[in-house]
């Protein structure tokens, strides 16, 4: 079931009732049961895959790594996790490429296998690798199988993260969770925020973005810019919404998850962007790929650059089995490197120069990131070429595809969220929150705001594209 559906709301409600209703010693097992129900609602067969991998990782971590010391026993475990990912996600891609090369050499094309991708596989295999490495580096493994099963399968983080490290959740799983009104309130607010971002914002941006990237479309420059800006917003809202709902859902049961997003479009350097975008993934890349590579390549700075490129290339490939994703990753690698050279983090500066550098860093980052989104969203290299060709042939400022409403929508959403978050970052929100006026008015106004937000979510959820039934 999808997070943003009435079905999920019902599921959550029922599970919550039962969870806090039954005695503490059954709760974990019940959560595992609920999680597998959630996962199997897509395709029950994959429940076995998840279970099998979970048992394997738990046993491997508990006995093989712990008892037999580190590195050489670590690698087979990692290979098992990664192979599963590769088999399900990248077989088609690999065969396509081998076939392509074969055809170029004069041979016949291979038949491309169509393997159905288990949802969440990119996440739970990466989590598996993280677990094994952490245990090998000295982390305490999960002793009880049920604890590990919960760690792995707990549904809020199963399908789309956040990727949780064992140390962040070990104590929470081992110890009893206690009901707290605060947790319930926080969890519900987070879930509400997620629903709002997805149903009201991301889903309304989607049709306009799709129209720009359609094969038959001939976008001009303005259309492409709107499409790319729209997509950057769409993917942010979409993804951070899922994280919000995940974090909120987990909190209802007393579990604290790590954050995944920190309004990345205010970043003043590519480096800062990756510290605020999909934080648990970039943390994974940093700890399990980049740092080991950079440390092994110790010495020449050039090797560190290579470590960056390899890490980002893998990061790109993880997002999808296509060359456009790899190129996107490598593009970000280049951004990171050039960002470091152009806008080095340290060095004390005069405030005025500091602001200028921050501002130009922001512009540089935004342009770089959004060009990246163009690469990410286009379905193939051919599509990128097609779009550029179309843009070059059309007048620069005249929309070839978009109506004013759509352009206004994108601009409004961007400006609104940008300013809200800028004010947040500058501390104005905190100031307002502590003001006397707000403290008095808050208990009356906030529930109204939430009620209105729910109303807006319900109204915005009207299936396919919005239509304005007017005469023109």
């Amino acid at each position, binding site marked *: 079931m999808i997070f943003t559906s009435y079905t999920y709301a019902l599921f959550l409600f029922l599970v919550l009732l039962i969870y806090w209703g039954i005695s503490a010693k059954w709760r974990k097992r019940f959560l595992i049961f609920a999680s597998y129900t959630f996962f199997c609602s897509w395709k029950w067969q994959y429940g076995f895959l998840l279970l099998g991998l979970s048992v394997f990782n738990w046993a491997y971590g508990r006995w093989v790594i712990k008892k037999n010391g580190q590195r050489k026993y670590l690698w087979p475990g990692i290979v098992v996790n990664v192979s599963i990912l590769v088999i399900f996600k990248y077989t088609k891609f690999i065969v396509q490429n081998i076939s392509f090369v074969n055809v170029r050499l004069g041979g016949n094309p291979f038949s491309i296998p169509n393997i159905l991708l288990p949802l969440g596989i990119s996440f739970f295999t990466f989590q598996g690798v993280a677990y094994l490495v952490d245990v090998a580096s000295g982390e305490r493994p999960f002793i009880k199988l049920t604890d590990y099963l919960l760690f792995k399968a707990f549904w809020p983080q199963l399908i789309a993260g956040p990727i949780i490290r064992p140390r962040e959740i070990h104590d929470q799983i081992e110890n009893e969770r206690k009901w707290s009104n605060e947790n319930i309130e926080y969890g519900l607010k987070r879930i509400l925020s997620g629903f709002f971002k997805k149903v009201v914002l991301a889903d309304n941006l989607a049709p306009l973005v799709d129209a720009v990237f*359609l094969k038959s479309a001939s976008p001009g420059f303005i259309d492409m810019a709107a499409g790319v800006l729209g997509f950057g917003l769409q993917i942010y809202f979409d993804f951070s919404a899922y994280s919000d709902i995940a974090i909120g859902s987990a909190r209802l049961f007393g579990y604290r998850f790590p954050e995944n997003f920190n309004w990345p479009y205010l970043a003043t350097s590519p480096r800062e962007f990756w510290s605020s975008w999909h934080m648990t993934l970039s943390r994974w890349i940093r700890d399990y790929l980049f740092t080991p590579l950079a440390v092994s390549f110790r010495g020449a700075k050039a090797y560190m650059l290579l470590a960056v490129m390899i890490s980002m290339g893998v990061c790109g490939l993880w997002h999808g089995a296509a060359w456009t994703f790899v190129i996107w990753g490598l593009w970000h690698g280049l951004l990171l490197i050039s960002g470091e050279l152009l806008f080095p983090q340290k060095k004390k500066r005069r405030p005025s120069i500091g602001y200028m550098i921050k501002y130009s860093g922001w512009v540089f980052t935004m342009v770089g990131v959004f060009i990246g989104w163009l690469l990410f969203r286009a379905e193939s290299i051919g599509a990128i070429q097609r779009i550029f060709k179309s843009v070059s042939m059309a007048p620069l400022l005249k929309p070839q*595809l978009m109506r004013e409403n759509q352009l206004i929508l994108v601009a409004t959403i961007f400006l609104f969220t940008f300013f809200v978050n800028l004010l947040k970052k500058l501390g104005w929100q905190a100031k307002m929150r502590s003001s006397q006026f707000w403290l008095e008015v808050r208990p009356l106004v906030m529930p109204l705001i939430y009620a209105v937000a729910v109303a807006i979510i319900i109204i915005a959820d009207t299936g396919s594209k919005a239509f304005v039934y007017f005469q023109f």
Partner: protein
Amino acid sequence: MLFIVWSFFINIGIFFWKNDLERSREKNLLQRQKADSYGHTTPRYDLSVGEETANYLRFVPDALRQRLIILSGMSQMYAINDQKDEDQTISEWMDDLLKASGSRVFGLAAPNICNEEVLLLLLAMANKAYTKPAVFIYGLCFDKFRNVDLRSSYEALLRSEPDLMKKWEFLANEYRDRYSKATDKMLSTLKSLSEEKKKANNSVEKVIRRHLSNLVPIIGAKEDLNAWFQGQLYLLRNKLFKIKPTSKRPQIPSRYQLNKEFLELFLDEAKKKGVIPIIYIVPLNPQAENPYVPEEYESFKTWAKTLCEEQHIPFDNLENVVPHADWGEFLGGPDFKHFRGEGHRRTAEELVRRFRSYFVTN
């Protein structure tokens, strides 16, 4: 918590507001009468104007027993300004004029209809022998070439018949080389339909939604609320950008191209299926300023005329057949594309006069 209190109040408010909302939505669609209150007379056109078309297909006269003529187009086909009791729409007038000769007319119009939708209507009608028309008339309205995408009820129509979806796909592949933009759009429509099917076909979700729609006023009224809200945004936009009904709206090149291809595809397919397509340029109010860029409009009419002449398709320009007196007003000025009851009658008479030989078998 107070949250529940506020939500309760909102819902009470919506409960009382619902009827007003529904009426205003119908008004915006320029619907003539409430869709389900046609009383004793059998509907002779899609009264839901594209909102619930599937429910009206059963009123289409049996094509096996008489010569069936479909009239399609935008809101001009059914909207009547300053409506009086005895007023009828174009398709109803035509039906009256031709009934005696053994031909029946049924109207399938919707506001802001685009050419992809008209293609779908043709395919849906031709799909079954008892709804397959002998003649399909489509009135071209230039500003509709700015619109794209199928509306939800048409999507539902397509989705509900698997063999129609197959035909849609087959068609897209067949014409891929000739109409690359249109066929690509058709395939993408299909793709989004099958994704929707996966999402909404979750029967649990459907059941929950149905029950909630009945129990919670705001969920039941959300379509109307959404339409109202969009309407407010639309008015705001017009105010901010000083857009009036007479402000010139140029064509959007990519969409214009797409619609042109869909029209050509429609004509090709109609002929192939043995349906006679008839194209006409819709009447415009001679004394109202229209929002068309003159050069663009002229070249559009030339293009349509040439296209039909080359393919020997019946075509005529009915721009000037309805005199100024028969039009109405809109937003304080003359309405440039919706007329009064007289206008409907005149248009019907003109269509019958000019294309009679196709309507009546001798």
